[in-house]
């Protein structure tokens, strides 16, 4: 009986693979097609000639490299900031008991419901008052804040996996809590921190809404904003360079996610969901 099910299962799996993978293949293919081929009526996944110039053209396009650099700065800074402030807080959260823990966890979940569209209006006003509305510093602070809930959640899961006995042994030896944290907890937490950092980086690198609202001058644009300018811009769209730019923008995220794969397919999300 099992054998009659298998072919159907494989067929379904192949359909899933097509649905999930084909769009990306198509994008990559478009990124190496000449504009003549892209505008012709014949539709092929494999380009008739490989036209790598699209990448050069995308990179030389106004502002793409510069905005990639902006994105990199914001993503790195907000990741470092978020990690620095969330590690200690996640530790406390994981070790809390009773009502306080419930309150902390509830806040993290509620923050997922945060209506970004309601928050963005006053956030814009507040940052404008501080002179940070159209600045990468302002965007970094915003990204840091909105990465925090998830970072806290991931990290507190990793902390919870460290046996309390280890710390108590340390405390018994007369070490202060900070020493215990530094010498016992942090080293064990390192893999969790790396995973959380990669996740945070990708969140910031990909983020569009805050950047769209906050950034106004082209020299501050992040990569996603510049890419949308490619679409809307000068009337006629150059599909090839646009596809090439899109591929380049996706590479860092996909690379990090592949590294995270084991962690993501493991219990991470189940932990996040089970509470």
């Amino acid at each position: 009986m099992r054998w009659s099910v298998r072919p159907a299962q494989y067929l379904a799996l192949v359909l899933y693979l097509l649905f999930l993978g084909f769009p990306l293949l198509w994008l990559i293919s478009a990124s190496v097609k000449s504009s003549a081929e892209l505008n012709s009526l014949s539709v092929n996944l494999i380009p008739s000639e490989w036209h790598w110039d699209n990448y050069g053209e995308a990179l030389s396009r106004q502002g793409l490299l510069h905005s990639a650099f902006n994105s990199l700065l914001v993503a790195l800074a907000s990741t470092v900031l978020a990690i620095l402030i969330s590690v200690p807080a996640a530790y406390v959260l994981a070790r809390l008991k009773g009502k306080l823990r419930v309150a902390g966890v509830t806040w993290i979940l509620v923050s997922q419901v945060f209506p970004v569209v309601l928050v963005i209006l006053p956030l814009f006003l507040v940052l404008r008052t501080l002179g940070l509305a159209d600045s990468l510093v302002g965007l970094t602070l915003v990204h840091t804040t909105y990465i925090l809930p998830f970072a806290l959640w991931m990290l507190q899961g990793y902390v919870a996996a460290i046996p309390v006995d280890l710390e108590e042994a340390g405390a018994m030896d007369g070490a202060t809590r900070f020493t215990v944290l530094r010498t016992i907890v942090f080293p064990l937490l390192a893999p969790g921190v790396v995973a959380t950092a990669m996740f945070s980086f990708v969140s910031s690198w990909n983020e569009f809404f805050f950047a769209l609202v906050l950034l106004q001058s082209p020299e501050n644009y992040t990569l996603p904003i510049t890419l949308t300018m490619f679409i809307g811009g000068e009337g006629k769209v150059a599909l090839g360079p646009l596809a090439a730019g899109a591929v380049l923008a996706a590479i860092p995220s996909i690379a990090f996610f592949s590294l995270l794969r084991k962690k993501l397919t493991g219990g991470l999300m189940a932990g996040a969901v089970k509470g």
Partner: protein
Amino acid sequence: MTTATQPRRAAPAPPPRPKKTTQARTRRREAIALVMPSLIPILVLSVAPLVIGIVLAFTDTRLVRHPDFGFAGIDNFVRLGGNSLFWDSLRIGLIWTVGVTVLQLAAAMGLALLLNSGLKLQGLTRVLALIPWAMPPVVVAIMWQMIYSANGGPLNAFLGSIGLPDGINWLGDFNTALPAVIVVGVWVGMPQTTVTLLAGLQQIPAELHEAAAVDGAGAWRRFTAVTWPSMRPIVSSITSLNFIWNFNSFSLVYVLTAGGPGGKTMVPVLFVYLEAFKNREIGYAAAMGLVLVIVVVALLAIYLRSQFRGDRPERGR
């Protein structure tokens, strides 16, 4: 598998220790010092704006150089009551949200079951299944614009090759735009749901399935009798989260269609954004935002209540 499976709850409660109050106080002070750096940005950039946002909803603030705030009472809400465009947008938003959330769950459940049944090609599938999750929404939108393209798009080419109509302007046609955008939403959201469900599936003890199989239960019966009940808590959690994420999703639709054609894909978040930053009616937009929050929270409460009520008899696990 690192964090979730630790049987944390199984540990017996520690016996009450005689504690010196000074020690407790130092510990408390330490805890506050550790939490503070996170708490400050959250309060300043997340909680405060939310509160201000709620206040804004009752003012007639406009987005100008030197805004003067005037208290407007419930004027915004009265005005909103007669704004049929807003309610249209809310209706579209609910179709989008429910459509994406339900299809996402169904598709992800199917994929998770396949990935849990020992097929070959699993490694490849698992890698591919994560890619939509990793990609920047703007890139996703650009990519799907190419797929849906009316001339020279691969979707139309495929349909043409099997003898179906091949001239459909997927994102530009009144009838197809919203469904087309929903498909992209499903594509983006599927990975995270799949991964979550898969982790849940792997925690169901194999003995349960074996016992059911011994009792002569077929695949479908095993799914309804064993898999689904065990997965209920995970399904309701991920569905709630997906519901919220999808309702709040902005970038995808903004880049794909910008709400067009003719407002057919004008999800509410996009509507509010335009009201605030194009029409510059920031107070009015805040009122809309507030209404959206209330709608989402209410719907979620109804859903979760029904879920938990169904849960209670089997709580003993």
